[in-house]
């Protein structure tokens, strides 16, 4: 009983610390990406690598007076404002876990994914990825509702019906076609907590799971209960399914992580910062603006 109370108290402290560490600055919307943390990081890194548009300079004649330069913005001003930090009191532990995951990737996951990609053609692997994405529909649908993003929830419901019925159980993704254009919502329970004002707290790099925070760790637990396969069969079937999903997803993005490592002075810091920025962007934009298809359906002619 004491240990239970201690855990609850610790959790409350963590959440409170999270609120205290809630950053106030966020940047532009992130591109849609899959839910697993590693993929989120890669998506965030890709967004970071794209050059930010330079501020427009007014075409005013410069006379040489200081006043003439007042309208010209400093290109680095915006970049400084977008700098986001997160408390990292567990850095030694996190670095150790980062290296563990790094070795796990290079020694196990990548070779397995490479062998798998040689045995299974890419269209089939994309189909498997589509299937798992369709299967996790409840997570995106429920969290869209919890965030009062009703257009997003409608989009997700439409995607699920269309992809299940006309996409052969979700193996194909007709809902993302140019004509239907119902885009996937990038939402999860951790994001929902963030939308309700729960701070992210400090940085945790979990073994196997990757970058996270106390808020997002709690969110992951919530998401697990919305994942349908947990209710079918014993735990090892679900676990095996998740491992296969990860191997399949990795086979579709071999090289992304390697590129990020090569481009970073300190990959650990790069992963941490990218993760934090990406999560903040998700929270600010609630999974992104309503999909064009949904907007079109809701708009009056």
């Amino acid at each position, binding site marked *: 009983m004491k240990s239970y109370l201690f855990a609850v108290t610790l959790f409350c402290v963590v959440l409170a610390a999270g609120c205290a560490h809630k950053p106030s600055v966020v940047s532009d919307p992130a591109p849609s990406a899959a839910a697993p943390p590693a993929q989120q990081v890669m998506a965030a890194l890709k967004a970071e690598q794209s050059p930010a548009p330079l501020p427009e300079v007014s075409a005013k004649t410069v006379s040489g007076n200081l006043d003439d330069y007042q309208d010209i913005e400093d290109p680095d001003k915006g970049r400084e404002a977008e700098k986001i930090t997160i408390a990292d009191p567990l850095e030694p532990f996190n670095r150790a876990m980062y290296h563990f995951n790094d070795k796990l990737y290079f020694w196990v996951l990548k070779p397995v994914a490479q062998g798998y990609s040689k045995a299974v053609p890419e269209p089939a692997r994309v189909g498997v990825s589509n299937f798992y994405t369709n299967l996790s529909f409840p997570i995106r649908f429920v969290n869209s509702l919890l965030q009062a993003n009703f257009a997003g929830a409608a989009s997700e419901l439409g995607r699920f019906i269309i992809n299940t*019925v*006309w*996409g*052969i*159980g979700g193996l*194909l993704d*007709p809902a993302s*076609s140019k*004509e239907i254009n119902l885009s996937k919502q990038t939402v999860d329970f951790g994001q929902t907590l963030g939308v309700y004002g729960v701070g992210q707290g400090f940085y945790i790099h979990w073994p196997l799971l990757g970058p996270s925070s106390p808020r997002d760790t709690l969110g992951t637990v919530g998401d697990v209960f919305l994942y349908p396969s947990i209710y079918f069969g014993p735990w090892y079937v679900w676990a095996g399914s998740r491992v296969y999903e990860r191997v399949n997803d990795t086979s579709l993005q071999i090289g992304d992580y390697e590129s990020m490592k090569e481009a970073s002075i300190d990959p650990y810091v790069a992963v941490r910062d990218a993760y934090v920025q990406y999560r903040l962007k998700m929270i600010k934009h609630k999974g992104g603006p309503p999909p064009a298809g949904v907007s079109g359906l809701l708009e009056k002619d």
Partner: protein
Amino acid sequence: MHTKTLKVMVISIVIMLTIQGTAAASGPFGPPQPVSRPAGGLHTGFGYWLQEDKFKNNEEYISRQQQIYSELGYGFQKNWDLYARVGLSGQKLFDAFSPTTTATTTSKNDFSENWKFFSTLGAKGFYPLHPAFGIGAFVQGTYYFSDFTDNVTGIQSGAPFTVELGLKNLWDVSAGIGFQATIPWGINLYIGPYLYYAEAKVSPSANITGLALTSGETILRNNTVFGGFAGIDAPLSKGFRLQIEGKYADRLSGGAAVTYSY
């Protein structure tokens, strides 16, 4: 090039009309021209079909199947199409348990069981004679993976009985030709004759006097092998199409499907 295609289609039609495959006549045939995009590609569909037939050995029985199915097909440049369906079907055989003597009474008259898997495979070819008119041929077969079974209780000469009847290895095969006309708004109207063969093995658990279908294992076959079909295939929006089709061979059957072309 067109002459060669026409020759291939004529030979295909002759083969289809003269050789019996190992499959059944349930499910729609669809428009003669594949519903894929002009450049070809995948198409999927979801539909409902109500199939009625008359089966016979010594007696005639009306059969009714209600099917829901999912379809996946691949069209080759709007001229050739291969497709497969997987679905669930119910089966009713009216008066299968109706006694033929007054000494026998039964708790019910009709054989009925639901939700059995079936699969359909089909192929079709289309030859456009005019931008708005063309002719096509198809062959299609269906096989039921599971047997249908139903029980009946009754009294025969004062003695109670229970008997289980199984409908096993139900399959059918159809082949035919279709004529298609395209009217404004991209709507396709189609009509044509077909022939088909269907059979199922009847397997009773006991021989009950007064119940015709319990006198040993027998084969039920369709009563009429020729029929006609007609339908409409209309574009909806965003790549979806609606198909409504009916066919007649002894009994009227019909259904509807919504397809999507990639």
